[in-house]
C-alpha cells in the first residue's frame, strides 16, 4: 500500500541534512555549553551558529533569539513573561488575544484570566481572519499585551500581523505572535512585521521535536518562566539541548534556502488537491477559501460525514490527514477555531485538514484524490444524517 503524508501542520519529517548536522552532538560532541573547556566551547559555538541561522531566517539579531523546548514553551514564555513583567511595574492588567489561537497561547491566556487578568478574545468571522480594527477597539489604558497568531493551524488563514503590530506599537503595548505555522512556509521578518515577540518551532519546518525559539525584540520587558541558571541571557535556564538547537539552526538555514520557490510549488499542489476534491466529491467546501492562506494548508468540509471516520478510513488507505488540530483530534469538543468562525458543531465535525510539505508531489496528490471520493461516498452511505439534498442546501461559501 502507498503511504502519503498530508499532515505537515501536525509535524514534519526530519530533513536528512538536519539529521546529519545533529549527529555529532548526539555522539562525540557531548559538551555542556556552559563549561570552560574545549568540549564546552565547541558546544557553545554550535549553539551560537544556530542562533545566527534562526535570526537570519526571521530577520532578527542573534541576541534576540531565545531557545526553548518548542512552540508551547515559547508562547507561554511570551504571554506569562510579558504580563508578569508589566504587573511587576504595578500596571493594571488586560490582555487581548483572538478566539482562534492555538491552545498553547489560548490556555496560557485563560490561565492568566483565572489569576485575575482581564482578557478580550477578539472574535473572528467566517473568513477566519481577524479585523485589526477589532483589536484596536479592544485596547484599554491597562492593556499589557496583545497576542495574535500569524497563520492559523487549522484553516491556514494568515492574520494581518503587521497591521496589528503597528497598532500595538503606536500605543506602546508589547505584541506577540505565534508564528509556529508560518515560519518556514511563508516569508516572516520581524522587522517588517514590527512584532515584539514571535514564537517558532523546529519540528514544523523539518527540524527535530522538542526545540523551538522565541524572538524577543531588544528592550521588551520579559520575566523568565523558570529559575535555575544564567543560560540564554538569563531568560531561559537549563543546560541547552545542543543537538536540538543545532537541528533547528540547520532547518532554519534550509528553509531560508528554499525560499518562495517551495511555497509556490506547494500552492500548486494545494490547488490541484482542492480542484480535484471539488470535481470528484460533491458537497465539499473549502473553508476560508478566499482569505489569505498558507500555500500548504487546506481545510475541507464534506457535507454529512464524520471527520473522525474520514481520517481513520484515509489512514487505512495509507494517507495521513487530520480533523482540526492534532491536539484536539479524538476529543469530544468540536474545534474551537471552526466554531469561532461560525460553524455549527456538525459542520465542524465534518471538517478535515490536509497540510502539505517538502516530500509531497503530484502523484501523491492524485493518489489522495482517488481515495477521497470513495471514502466520502462510503461514509455518506452509512451516515443516518446525510441526505443528498444537503448538497444543494449548503452551497453557501465559507
Amino acid at each position, binding site marked *: *500500500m502507498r503511504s502519503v503524508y498530508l499532515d505537515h501542520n501536525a509535524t514534519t519529517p526530519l530533513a536528512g541534512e538536519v539529521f546529519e548536522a545533529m549527529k555529532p552532538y548526539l555522539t562525540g560532541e557531548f559538551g555542556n555549553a556552559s563549561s570552560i573547556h574545549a568540549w564546552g566551547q565547541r558546544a557553545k559555538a554550535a549553539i551560537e551558529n544556530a542562533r545566527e541561522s534562526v535570526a537570519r531566517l526571521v530577520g532578527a539579531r542573534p541576541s534576540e533569539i531565545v531557545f526553548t523546548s518548542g512552540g508551547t514553551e515559547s508562547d507561554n514564555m511570551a504571554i506569562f513573561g510579558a504580563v508578569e513583567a508589566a504587573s511587576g511595574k504595578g500596571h493594571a492588567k488586560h490582555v487581548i488575544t483572538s478566539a482562534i489561537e492555538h491552545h498553547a497561547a489560548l490556555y496560557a491566556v485563560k490561565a492568566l484570566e483565572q489569576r485575575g487578568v482581564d482578557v478580550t478574545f477578539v472574535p473572528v468571522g467566517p473568513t477566519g481572519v481577524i479585523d485589526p480594527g477589532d483589536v484596536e477597539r479592544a485596547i484599554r489604558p491597562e492593556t499589557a499585551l496583545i497576542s495574535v497568531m500569524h497563520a492559523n493551524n487549522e484553516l491556514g488563514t494568515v492574520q494581518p500581523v503587521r497591521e496589528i503590530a503597528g497598532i500595538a506599537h503606536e500605543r506602546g503595548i508589547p505584541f506577540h505572535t505565534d508564528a509556529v505555522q508560518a515560519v518556514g512556509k511563508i516569508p516572516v521578518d520581524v522587522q517588517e512585521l514590527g512584532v515584539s515577540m514571535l514564537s517558532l518551532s523546529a519540528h514544523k519546518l523539518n527540524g527535530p521535536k522538542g526545540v523551538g525559539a522565541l524572538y524577543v525584540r531588544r528592550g521588551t520587558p520579559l520575566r523568565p518562566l523558570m529559575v535555575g541558571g544564567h543560560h540564554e541571557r538569563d531568560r531561559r535556564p537549563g543546560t541547552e539541548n545542543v543537538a536540538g538547537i543545532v537541528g533547528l539552526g540547520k532547518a532554519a538555514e534550509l528553509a531560508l534556502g528554499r525560499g518562495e520557490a517551495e511555497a509556490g510549488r506547494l500552492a500548486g499542489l494545494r490547488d490541484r488537491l482542492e480542484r480535484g476534491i471539488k470535481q470528484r466529491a460533491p458537497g465539499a467546501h473549502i473553508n476560508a477559501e478566499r482569505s489569505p492562506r498558507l500555500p500548504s494548508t487546506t481545510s475541507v468540509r464534506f457535507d454529512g460525514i464524520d471527520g473522525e471516520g474520514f481520517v481513520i*478510513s484515509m489512514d487505512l488507505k495509507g494517507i495521513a490527514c487530520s480533523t482540526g488540530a492534532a491536539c484536539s483530534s*479524538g476529543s*469530544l469538543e468540536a474545534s474551537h477555531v471552526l466554531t469561532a468562525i461560525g460553524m455549527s458543531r456538525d459542520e465542524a465535525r465534518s471538517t478535515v485538514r490536509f497540510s502539505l510539505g517538502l516530500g509531497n508531489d503530484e502523484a501523491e496528490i492524485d493518489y489522495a484524490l482517488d481515495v477521497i471520493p470513495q471514502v466520502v461516498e462510503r461514509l455518506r452511505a452509512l451516515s443516518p444524517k446525510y441526505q443528498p439534498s444537503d448538497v444543494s442546501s449548503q452551497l453557501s461559501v465559507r
Partner: protein
Amino acid sequence: MMIAIAMSGGVDSSTAAAILAEREGALSTEGSGGRVVGLTMQLWNQRRLPALQGLDEGLDRGRAAGRCCSLDDVYDARRVAHCLGIPYYVINLQDRFEAAVVRPFVERYLAGETPIPCSLCNAEIKFEQFVEAAAQIGADQIATGHYARIRYDAKTGRYRLFAAVDRAKDQSYFLFGLTQRQLASAIFPLGELTKEEVRSIARAKKLPVAEKPESQEICFVPKGSYREFITAYLEEQGTEPEDRAGEMVTVDGQVVGRHRGVHHFTVGQRKGLGVSSPTPLYVIGLDARTRRVMVGRDEELFKQCCSVRSVNWIRPVSAGQSFSARVRIRNKHVPAKARVEACGKQEARVEFDEPQRAVTPGQAAVFYDGEEVVGGGWISGAASAQKLTDQLDHTVRREVCG
C-alpha cells in the same frame, strides 16, 4: 474482509485481538491492506463529575485501571495493538453513550429499578453505534472479548447465541438483546476458551496486559458508588434538587421509617435501611410513584413469577406460545427452571418452579434452553404465586398478559 475488534485495554479483548490477528494474518498499515483493526470506544470522560474525583484515590493502580475509558486503559489498548502490529484508533461515542446508557441508568434508578447498563450498552452502543462506526471505516464485521458463542444455523438461516464454554465467565446474560443483524456481524473469539486459557495465550503472546487484574464494576461509576454518581450527575445536569424522600413500609402497610429516595435501594438489600427490627429486614420492593420502600423478612423476598418487557427473541417464539426454560434473573444467578409464556410480541411472563429470591425490576430475565439463549428482556414486576389476587400481581397480569 476487514474485522474491527473492540479493545478495552483489558486482558480479554486484548487476547481476542491477538487471536484474530493471528487467524486473519493481520498486516499493519504499511502492509498490503490490514485485515484486523483495533478500536477503543471513548464512552465517558472520567474527569467529568468533579464530585466523584476523590473516590478513586487510595485504590491501587490495578483497580483504578479496571474502569473503562481511563487514559491508562487507552494506553494499554494502544500498546497491545502496537505489539500485535494492527492499526489502532480511538473512536468517540461519548454523546451516544450518555444518551443511550447513562441517562436511562439514572432514570431507571429514580423509577425504583436496579438497571444493568452493560446490557443496554451492548444493545445500543457496542453492537449498534460501534458496528456503524466500524462499517464507516470499511470493516465488514466486528469482534469483542465477550465470553459467548454465536452459531449460524444453515437449516433455519438464523444466528443462534450460546453460553460460553467457561460457565464462570459466561457473558451471554448481557447479550440477550442482540438482533439477528447484530449477531450476523459479530465474532466472539473467546467463546470456546476458559479464562485460564485466555490468560495463558496472553502470556504466550507476551501481551503487556497479560497480568492485568479483572474489572467487574460499572465502567462509568467509580468504586461501585452509584448513588453518589446519580447525585453528581443530576447536579451537573442542573436538575432541580427534588425531595425524593418517602416512607419505609412493611408488606402489611405499617410505616417503620423514612428514606432519602428509592434510588438508594435495591431489592434484597439489607444494610443501610436505618430501621431496627428484631428479625433482619430486607428491601422487598420499590415504588417510585408513592416513593415507598417496602421492607420485610427474607421469606418475603421470594417470588414465584415475574413479568418481562422489551423481550428480544433470538430463537423465534410466537405470541401465546409457552415453553419450559431455565431463567437467569441476574448475572451470577444459577438459571432456575420455569415456564415462559410469550404474551405480546415483546412481553413475556415467567413462572418459576420454585420461588426465586430478589426478583429485581430493571434486571434482565434471560431464557435458556440448555446452553442456548432463547431470548430475554427486562424484569418489570414480580409477584408471589399465593397472592395472585394481589394488586401488584394484578397489575403484572394486566400489563403483561392483558
